[in-house]
C-alpha cells in the first residue's frame, strides 16, 4: 500500500517537473520570438539603407519629381535645427523642475508633479502636435520650424525631469552636508556641487531624450510640416528626416523609396549611436542587473 502511494507520488512529481520544464522552455522561446523581429527590422533597414546610401545623399538637395538622384541635405539640417529648438525649450524646464522635485519638494505636491510628469510622458505625441498647432501655428498663421521645435520640446520635458530627479537622488546626502558645513549657501550647493556631481547622468538622460525626439514624426506633420527646399528660418516650414521618410515611403516612385531607406538608415544610426554612447558611459547607472 505504502509502496503504491510512493509510486503514485513519484508519478505526480515527474508530471510537475515536466510541466515546469515545458513552461520554462516556452519562456525562452518567447524571448527569441521577441528579439527576432526587432533584429530583423534593424538589419533589414540597415541593409536596404546601406545599398542606397551615398555621399550625394547627405550633401545634395532633393531633386524635383521625375529626376533621379538628389539627397536629403535639407532634411538632415532641418532635423538638427528642430533638435536645437526643442533642446532650448525642453532642457532648462526639465532640469529646473527636476531640481525642485528632487531637492525642495516633499509630500503631496511632489507626488502631484511626479504624477503629472508620468501623465505627460504618456500623452500620444500626435496630441502634443495638436497642442503646438493650437498655440503656435494658429496665432502665427502658418506651419513653422518653431512650432515643430516647441512640440518636440514638450515631449522632451518629462524625460528630462525624471532623469534629473533620479540622478540628483543618487548624489549622497553627505556631499550636500559637507558643502553646507563650509558655509556655502544652499542654492550654490545645489547648482555648483549637487548638480555638477549628477551632470554626467543628466547629460546621458538628455541624450536619450534627444534620440527619442529625433525620430518623432507625428507631431511634425502639422507643425514643422516639411519642406522640399533648404530653409533655416524659424517661421517657415522646415524639412526633417522623419517627415521626408514618411512622404517618400508613401510615394509611388521607386527612386524615392530608395532614398527613404537611406534616410531611415541615417535616422537609425543617429538614434543608435546616441544610445550606444549613453549605455557605454553609464553602464553601472542604468543597468542595475
Amino acid at each position, binding site marked *: 500500500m505504502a509502496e503504491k502511494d510512493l509510486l503514485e507520488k513519484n508519478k505526480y512529481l515527474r508530471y510537475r517537473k515536466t510541466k515546469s520544464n515545458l513552461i520554462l522552455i516556452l519562456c525562452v522561446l518567447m524571448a527569441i520570438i521577441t528579439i527576432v523581429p526587432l533584429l530583423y527590422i534593424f538589419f533589414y533597414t540597415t541593409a536596404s539603407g546601406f545599398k542606397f546610401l551615398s555621399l550625394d545623399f547627405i550633401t545634395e538637395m532633393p531633386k524635383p519629381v521625375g529626376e533621379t538622384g538628389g539627397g536629403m541635405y535639407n532634411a538632415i539640417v532641418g532635423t538638427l535645427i528642430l533638435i536645437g529648438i526643442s533642446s532650448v525649450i525642453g532642457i532648462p*524646464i526639465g532640469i*529646473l523642475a527636476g531640481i525642485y522635485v528632487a531637492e525642495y519638494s516633499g509630500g503631496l505636491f511632489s507626488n502631484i508633479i511626479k504624477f503629472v510628469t508620468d501623465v505627460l510622458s504618456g500623452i500620444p505625441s500626435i496630441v502634443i502636435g*495638436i497642442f503646438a498647432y493650437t498655440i503656435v501655428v494658429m496665432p502665427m498663421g502658418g506651419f513653422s520650424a518653431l512650432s515643430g521645435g516647441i512640440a518636440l520640446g514638450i515631449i522632451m520635458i518629462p524625460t528630462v525631469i525624471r532623469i534629473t530627479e533620479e540622478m540628483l537622488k543618487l548624489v549622497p546626502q553627505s556631499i550636500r552636508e559637507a558643502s553646507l558645513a563650509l558655509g556655502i549657501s544652499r542654492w550654490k550647493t545645489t547648482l555648483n556641487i549637487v548638480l555638477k556631481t549628477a551632470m554626467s547622468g543628466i547629460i546621458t538622460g538628455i541624450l536619450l531624450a534627444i534620440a527619442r525626439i529625433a525620430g518623432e514624426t*507625428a507631431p511634425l506633420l502639422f507643425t514643422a510640416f516639411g519642406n522640399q527646399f533648404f530653409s533655416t528660418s524659424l517661421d517657415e516650414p522646415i524639412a526633417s528626416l522623419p517627415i521626408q521618410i514618411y512622404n517618400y515611403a508613401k510615394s509611388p516612385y521607386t527612386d524615392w523609396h530608395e532614398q527613404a531607406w537611406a534616410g531611415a538608415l541615417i535616422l537609425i544610426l543617429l538614434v543608435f549611436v546616441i544610445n550606444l554612447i549613453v*549605455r557605454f558611459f553609464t553602464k553601472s547607472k542604468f543597468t542595475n*542587473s
Partner: protein
Amino acid sequence: MFKRTLKSSATVIQLSLNSIKLLETPEKIIRSKKNLSDIIFENITLLFACIVIFLLLDIIYEMFLHSVLSREAFGFGFIFSSDWDPVKDKFGALAFIYGTVVSSLIALIIALPVSIGVAIFLSELAPKSIRTVFSFLIEILAAIPSIIFGFWGLYVLVPYMRESVQPFLNSILGWIPLFTGTNIGTGMFTAGVILAIMIIPIISAISRDVIRAIPTAQREAAYALGATRWEAIRMALLNAKSGILGATVLGFGRAVGETMAVTMVIGNRAEISLGLFNSAYSMASVIANEFAEASQALHISALIEVGLILFVVTFIINSLARLLIYSVTRKYETR
C-alpha cells in the same frame, strides 16, 4: 600600511558616528538654512515645476477650446456616429475609436503572453551575462523610431501578411468571421501585429522590474516546501499580478496613441467591419492624415475633438497603469 588604513578607517567610522549623533535630522538642518538668494532660487525651480502642471492643464484647455465647433454641432453623437465625410460636413468618430480599440486589443492579445515569457526569462531564468546583453538589445531596439517600424511594416510585413499569414489563417480559422476580409495585406490585423512588436519591450521591461521586486525569500520558501521551479515562479507572478496588469495597461496606452506605424499599415478606411483583414482607421491615423490638409474650421475642430478623445482615453489608461504599478513596487520597496 595595512594597520594605518585600518586605524584611519576606524577614525572615519568614529567621526561619522559622531556626526550622526550631532546631526540627528540632517534634512531638517539643511532645510532650515535659508537666506534670500536661497528663497529666490527655490521659487524659480518651483515656478518651472508649475510650468509642467500648467502645460498639462493648457493642453486640456486648448483642445477643449478648439474642438468647440464640433462639440456644439454633434454633441455626444460624435462618439456614436461613424459618418466621416468632410465634403458634406458630417463627422463621427466611431469608426476610428473602433479601429484604435480593436487594433490595440489585437496587439495586447499577441504581446501579453510573449511579454510575460520574456519577463520570466529575464528575471528568473537567464544567467546574468545573457540577461544584461538581452535587456540591452531590447532596450536599444525599442528605441527605433516608429516611422521606421511603419516603413518596414509597409514594405516587408504587409506583403508577407498578404501572401502567407492571412491566407493561412483564413484557411484554418476562416469559419470565424474575424479571420476574413479583403486580403490586401494592409488592415487591422497587420496593424495589430506591428503594434505588438512595438509594445512587447515596454510590457516585458516593466513586468520584469515588478517580478524582481518580489523578495527572493518567498521563492526560497516555495523551494523549501518542495515546489518545482515553475511553481515557485508562479507564486511570484501571482504576487506581482497587479503590477503586471499595470504594465499591460501601459502597453495598451502606448498602442492606442501610436501613430505613424499604424497609419502606414492599417489601410486608412473609415469602416467598421468584423473581418480583421479588412482595412480600418485609427484615431491617431486620421489626425495624422487629414490635419495638415483640413481647411474648413469644422473639419479641424472635429479632428481636434478626435485628439481630445484620444487624450482622455490615454490619460485614464495611464493613470490607472501607474497606480497599479506603484501598488506592487511600493509594497515590496521597504525591505
